[in-house]
């Protein structure tokens, strides 16, 4: 029973990342009709926002210590972060320790700008082009962004630890412990998903966007600049994926290809949930996360070897064969 609960929790955690990325993908597809293969790269850039902030906080001045030697036998250069000089050792250390949560504040404007520039600078030119063209250009963009990150940060994973206070494990029940940061990540995902839904449901802006998603032309005929709102939605989708990346850093150390690792799975999530369906993306994200988690258990891998590697694709095939529009997709989308 404990093992089942742990796998459900694990699934919810994985599902949180899938759902957040898929939510952004669906927002972009639903509003702009664009299949954005660069969305995984945005998730990665979000993770590297926390890496960048961590490095900024760790910018140091060097003092040569003649009493110690470096690996070449030269006097050791001892580094002291500026933050510790400015705010005192204790406060400075705390700031560095909290660099991941603080990176949220740093990442929001960065991701909004990246989303805006990406949409205005490139993607808007492909609105009327076939989906194949959109996929090719956004996939190319993803590779470029990946290589840029690799150039500046290297190929090695970079640890972005959670704050000390949010590290370690929480005792959920007798004999059941679970990492605190993963609980934080799940709660964060729920809050972000809730906020996006509330924004679309309860604000005038959101209502107009939803109307535009249903019938873009009619909304345009009412004199509303729907394109401008859709551009903002693109920025918002980028911010959602970026924040998912920021908070994911302490779970798995950010690396330059993490976007690609998530991209394909997130597309499967979108298709299973139903292209254009926001609740579908979220539901499919969590369901597939849990299924993948159970498929990795010892029982599953010994009963059906390799099931852990194909479960998501197996589910996708079954869903697409039996219900081409996905779990909650609109009738007519992806159907004849």
């Amino acid at each position, binding site marked *: 029973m404990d093992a089942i609960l742990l796998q459900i929790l694990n699934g919810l955690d994985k599902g949180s990342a899938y759902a957040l990325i898929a939510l952004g993908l669906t927002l972009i597809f639903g509003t702009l009709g664009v299949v954005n293969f660069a969305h995984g790269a945005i998730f990665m850039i979000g993770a590297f926002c926390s890496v960048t902030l961590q490095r900024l906080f760790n910018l140091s001045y060097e003092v040569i210590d003649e009493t110690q030697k470096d690996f070449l036998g030269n006097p050791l250069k001892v580094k002291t972060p500026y933050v510790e000089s400015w705010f005192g050792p204790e406060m400075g250390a705390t700031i560095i320790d909290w660099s991941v949560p603080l990176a949220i504040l740093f990442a929001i404007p960065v991701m909004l700008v990246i989303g805006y520039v990406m949409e205005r600078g490139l993607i808007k030119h492909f609105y009327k082009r076939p989906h194949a063209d959109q996929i090719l250009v956004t996939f190319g963009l993803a590779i470029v962004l990946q290589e840029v990150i690799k150039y500046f940060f290297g190929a090695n994973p970079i640890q972005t630890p959670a704050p000390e206070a949010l590290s370690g494990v929480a005792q959920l029940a007798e004999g059941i412990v679970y*990492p605190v940061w993963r609980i934080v990540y799940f709660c964060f995902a729920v809050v972000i998903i809730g906020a996006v839904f509330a924004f679309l449901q309860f604000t005038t802006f959101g209502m107009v966007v939803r109307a535009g998603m249903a019938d873009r032309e009619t909304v345009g005929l009412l004199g509303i600049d729907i394109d401008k709102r859709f551009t903002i939605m693109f920025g918002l989708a980028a911010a959602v994926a970026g924040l998912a990346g920021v908070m994911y850093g302490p779970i798995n*150390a950010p690396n330059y290809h993490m976007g690609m690792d998530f991209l394909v799975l997130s597309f499967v999530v979108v298709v299973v949930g139903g292209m254009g369906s926001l609740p579908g993306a979220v539901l499919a994200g969590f369901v597939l996360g849990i299924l993948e988690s159970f498929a990795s258990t010892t029982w599953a891998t010994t009963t059906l070897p390799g099931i852990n590697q194909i479960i998501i694709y197996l589910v996708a095939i079954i869903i697409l064969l039996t219900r081409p529009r996905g779990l909650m997709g609109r009738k007519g989308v992806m159907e004849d």
Partner: protein
Amino acid sequence: MSKTNLTRRGVLKSGAVAGAGVALPTIFTGSSVSAFTNDPTGDTVTLGFNVPQTGPYADEGADELRAYELAVEHLNGGGDGGMLNTFSSKVLDGTGILGKKVAYVTGDTQTKSDAARASAKSMIEKDGAVMITGGSSSGVAVAVQGLCQEAGVIFMAGLTHSNDTTGKDKKANGFRHFFNGYMSAAALAPVLKNLYGDDRKAYHLTADYTWGWTQQESIAAATEAMGWETVNNVLTPLAATDFSSYIAPVLNSGADVLVLNHYGGNMVNSLTNAVQFGLRNKEVNGKNFEIVVPLFSRLMARGAGENIKGIVGSTNWHWSLQDEGSKAFVKSFGTKYGFPPSQAAHTCYVQTLLYADAVQRAGSFNPCAVVEALEGGDSSLPGISSPANKGYLFDGLGNGQTLYRSADHQCFKDVLVVKGKENPTSEFDLLEVVEVTPAAQVWYEPDHPMFAGGQLGSCNPGA
């Protein structure tokens, strides 16, 4: 009655065509053209550096390339000469190889066998590479070694730790300086027994490809021999990034040791996940829960950050070694790049020097002459009584005296057992050497069951 249409002209034409056909194979082996693949005819010789520049082992690949460039610089007489000054063989004098300047081409294996083969094939066919080297994945090494055997060029394996590389998949044209899973297990087991006792239950997570399989088999055999029980072994995909689903079942498995048969980015993630789940602070069966990473590298240690502290593993070489060869290499590499070399860099640098040395001693780039030079006659490692203890013996390249065993082209040398340092003094000072295991302790016979099957065969000069 049968009818024939034989004419004199027809018979002559047919005869000419048939004669040309019969003679054709001899054209390629005649004295008018080279007798082996890519015989360098100009004033340069091209080496092919085939490393992972993308994928989970990309960081190792980047360091390997740095080492190759340094080796080329030293072979061509540049820099401070590095290990050329400490190498026991003195035939290399900084004038290239056999008087030819060393040039090189690079390729990206992508940590995928098919991409690696395509890249190596291009280097051999288009760039005229006479030797291919590189790696960081045993799957890649085995695939490229097979290709080099078919093409008739030498393969000097880079980082490949699977038993199969010099076991069932060994090839006459292939040579491995790096150690292997069996040697890691042989070096680690006594240290693990000393640290954690002989009554332990181990849970293995294993990368699902040749390296993971043979390493797991080796570690399980060595630890079971000293009394440990293997509770479970779960194979994980190479492309996996989140290992939490694999870690969670460990919590209730009754195991008190987790063995991570993972490398590179995989190991960074699996160790991070294991630490997140509190395994390091857990007590099971009245003992502290322990994590073991059988194959360590400083690059992985850097990626794993704080999580690596106190964790035991094995490594082929470490920059803190104080022999003259290691010190010379660290000085050269550190001065050029600003940080110490990894074990991947070391093995690739050494392999390049060993190839150049063999060519120089053989007086020929012919792969068969190189094989003969690397097999080296009847030299043997002191202190080991075995008929298989013969090959090319050298020193001055780190790890003390080293034997390139002629029976399977595997190097035998001291193996290091290391531990993640609790209080590092710098960003490079992440591992401490806890034991230097003598070569005699990691020795095995060529027909050991874990290396059985396959044939070394004979060298192929190609063309």
